[in-house]
């Protein structure tokens, strides 16, 4: 028996947008109800047909150039009004902020500044990885291919999981350089979005609770276990990225994080 609201539920289920509890309930129902199963098959056919016959387009090169030129011209036109005396003010502003650091709790401020520098580093690596042929050194969805690849390339063996069953397939791994050391970068996908997971052995300590940052439209999640420091970056929405980080943390603690 299918009714409109149920159909929308089924669509949300197929889109991976249904809460886990509802999804389980629906799966149980699908197993028993041929009509709903038929509805689902129809939707899967439609999805395949859309993928095959409804193309995404590439912006023509001429348009790309036109946009770049127009944006550049508009930005230049705005420059004089917006930063009239920047030559004078910027050093002053810098001096002022340094003074604040000196007067305030400088230790904390410096620690935070280090964290922000690291965040900048991580974000730069993420953006660089999105450029053509920078994404992976070892493109594989098989965790047993990706993990051994790091042997001899790093002084630790990163934990590699595949969350394809949860909608975050493993795409590959890469060697990267962040915060003055070689780190493992693992790449996961979510629809058209890419997620970079950077990890390296943590400094001894109790771990760091998860925190989030948003920069240039990208979200950064950071935490540390007793063994590893993690940074997760993507343009994926924060709720889904949080969901992904949860899977990672869960898998990590289940593995007992062996070195």
């Amino acid at each position, binding site marked *: 028996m299918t009714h*409109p609201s149920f*159909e*929308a539920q089924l*669509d*949300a289920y197929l*889109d991976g*947008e249904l809460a886990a509890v509802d999804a389980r309930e629906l799966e149980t129902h699908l197993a028993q109800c041929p009509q709903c199963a038929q509805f689902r098959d*129809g*939707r899967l*056919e*439609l*999805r395949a*047909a*859309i*993928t*095959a*016959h*409804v*193309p*995404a*387009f*590439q*912006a*023509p090169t001429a*348009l*790309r150039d*036109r*946009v*770049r030129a*127009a*944006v*550049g011209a*508009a*930005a*230049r036109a*705005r*420059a004089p009004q*917006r*930063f009239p005396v*920047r030559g004078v003010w910027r050093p002053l502003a810098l001096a002022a902020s340094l003074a604040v650091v000196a007067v305030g709790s400088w230790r904390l401020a410096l620690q935070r500044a280090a964290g922000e520098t690291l965040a900048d580093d991580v974000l730069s690596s993420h*953006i660089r990885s*999105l450029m053509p042929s920078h994404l992976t050194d070892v493109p594989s969805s098989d965790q047993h291919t990706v993990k051994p690849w790091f042997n001899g390339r790093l002084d630790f063996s990163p934990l590699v999981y595949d969350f394809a069953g949860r909608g975050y397939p493993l795409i590959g791994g890469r060697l990267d350089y962040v915060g003055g050391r070689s780190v493992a970068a693992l790449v996961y996908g979510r*629809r*058209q*979005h890419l997620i970079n997971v950077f990890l390296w052995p943590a400094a001894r300590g109790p771990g760091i609770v998860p925190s*989030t940052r*948003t920069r*240039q*439209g*990208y*979200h950064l999640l950071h935490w540390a276990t007793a063994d590893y420091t993690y940074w997760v970056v993507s*343009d*994926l*929405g*924060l*709720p*889904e990225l949080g969901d992904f980080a949860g899977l990672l943390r869960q898998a990590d603690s289940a593995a007992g994080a062996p070195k």
Partner: protein
Amino acid sequence: MESSELARFEAVVLPHLDAAYTLARYLTRNEHDAEDVVQDASLRALKYFDGFRGEEGTSARAWLLAIVRNTAFSSRRRQRPDAVVLEFDEAQHSGAVADEHPEAALLRSAAKESLGHALDRLAPEFREVIVLRELEGLSYKEISDVAGVPVGTVMSRLSRARARLQQALRQEEEG
């Protein structure tokens, strides 16, 4: 605007130009209008870029697509008040199927054409959720931000839009 700020804008926005163009193509159903919309939207994006900086939970792609969407809708209202005119561009939906068996090619282009037709015939608010979901890969929450409607509305629009596309596909197979 400082040059570093311009560089930041280019790094954040230009990677999503294909996505912007794809959405504009389907909303305007026309190459030239799509190009104009993308250019206008990019300039608008530049203007609002300061406001984008700290917004939590919004991806750059969804942010740009929202601007493209609003630009497309407002330019359409300006140009043709009776926006439902169907201009079907033959070239747009009959792509190259040259090296195929003629019969297979015929079947394939039939399915392609009927689906393209059906999508073009959908009301804009249904067409946009299909494009945002199936081609741009946005989450329901992001689509709700882009289209400015609650998530529940996104859900029901998607479902109804799919039902219509499926109907079109089925008719093609039968007829």
